[in-house]
């Protein structure tokens, strides 16, 4: 399996977030996306799963399931934890496991194993509203374990995690890679992968501002024209 990106452009609110991004990630490979704040790391991940529109460029997946889109074969771990405070830890995970299409023969064992993997098994019946930031993060990570999907898109996965949990997460990522999965992670620091390629995103700097304003003028006349 191979994820190819050719000449990706993303535009938000009339501003180029990133432009001309190329990369390739194959099975068993990890790509860390680095760059300053606002360089477009999160936007790149959201673009890949179709939550942001691609302004220009091509994204293809070779060797995946042809019936499914890239988003449907990917896990996205964003800044938000997608947890309901009034549901218990186990209920939150059970819902996402069922919704994201994990048709496991025995759902409850899968849930129990996934909770055990992230160290939340003793808190299974506690409402998620009582969890700490790091525990909430771990519960989101349990989603990646409970439902098997080949592509992992992780947006600063280690934030709020303690040292033990970070080590456990890097173990999970190694397992995922050795099982033929691929990982894209936006990060500011090391995430504990022994071997990974790096994609550096540079912000589209103000030195481009002249051409940027020209673009705007052209866009505006095009919109007003018809």
């Amino acid at each position: 399996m191979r994820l190819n990106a050719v000449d990706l452009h993303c535009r938000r609110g009339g501003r180029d977030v990133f432009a001309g991004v190329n990369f390739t990630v194959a099975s068993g490979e990890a790509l860390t996306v680095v760059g300053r704040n606002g360089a477009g790391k999160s936007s790149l991940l959201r673009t890949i799963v179709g939550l942001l529109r691609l302004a220009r460029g091509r994204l293809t997946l070779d060797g995946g399931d042809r019936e499914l889109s890239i988003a449907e074969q990917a896990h996205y771990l964003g800044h938000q934890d997608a947890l309901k405070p009034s549901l218990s830890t186990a209920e939150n995970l059970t819902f996402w496991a069922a919704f994201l299409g994990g048709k496991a023969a025995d759902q409850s064992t899968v849930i129990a194993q996934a909770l055990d993997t992230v160290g939340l098994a003793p808190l299974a019946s506690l409402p998620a509203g009582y969890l700490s930031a790091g525990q909430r993060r771990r519960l989101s990570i349990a989603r990646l374990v409970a439902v098997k999907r080949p592509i992992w898109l992780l947006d600063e996965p280690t934030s709020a995690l303690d040292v033990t949990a970070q080590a456990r997460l890097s173990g999970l990522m190694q397992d995922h890679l050795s099982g033929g999965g691929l990982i894209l992670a936006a990060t500011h620091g090391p995430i504990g992968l022994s071997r990974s390629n790096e994609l550096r995103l540079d912000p589209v700097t103000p030195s481009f501002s002249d051409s940027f304003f020209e673009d705007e003028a052209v866009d505006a006349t095009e919109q007003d024209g018809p």
Partner: protein
Amino acid sequence: MTALAAILLRDIRIAMRVGGGALMGVLFFLVVVTMTPFAIGPDLALLKRIGPAILWLAALLASLLALDRLFTGDHDDGSLDLILMGRAPLELVVGMKGLAHWLTTGLPLVLAAPLIGLFLNLDAPAEGALVLTLLVGTPALTFIGMIGAAIAVTLRRGGLLLAVIVLPLTVPVLIFGVGAANAAVVGPVPFGTPFTVLCALTLASLVIGPFAAAAALRQEME
């Protein structure tokens, strides 16, 4: 458990838990209808005549009350991102969320209506007709309302905008709902004609609502 059953069950469960707000609509409904006789006075003939209209208006406002939480909850905690990425068609997922919303906010109104109708001097046949119109009409309120809820999802305080968008669209439902209920109370128009139109409005909204709401959600994720 399939994805659609999972989301239906989850939404019902959240609504029933503390802070879910399933009973807020019924309480609001009860308060509005109870206040009416105090405002109008103890004229039993007048109360009986305007009773169906008051109940319908209160039901409309009560179902509007909880609508702004239909998608904003999922938007604020990032669940909507994952829902959009899911393999289940967004239209069906949105339809399931609407169904869960109606079961927890619309259905209690229908069940409470016979009791509350007593405050407005409605007799048994009138109450029967009223409950039937509410049972058929409140799903239309939810499914028309979900379009506004999807449009206002990214706004911080979208509740008022939601009311402005949704209320005009619910005018036909209100006209034929009250029309059918009134026909049973005062006659001389047959009950069947406005009631059939109400059924048609509900069926149309069940189809149009999820598609329009799903389209609005997709647009807004940009």
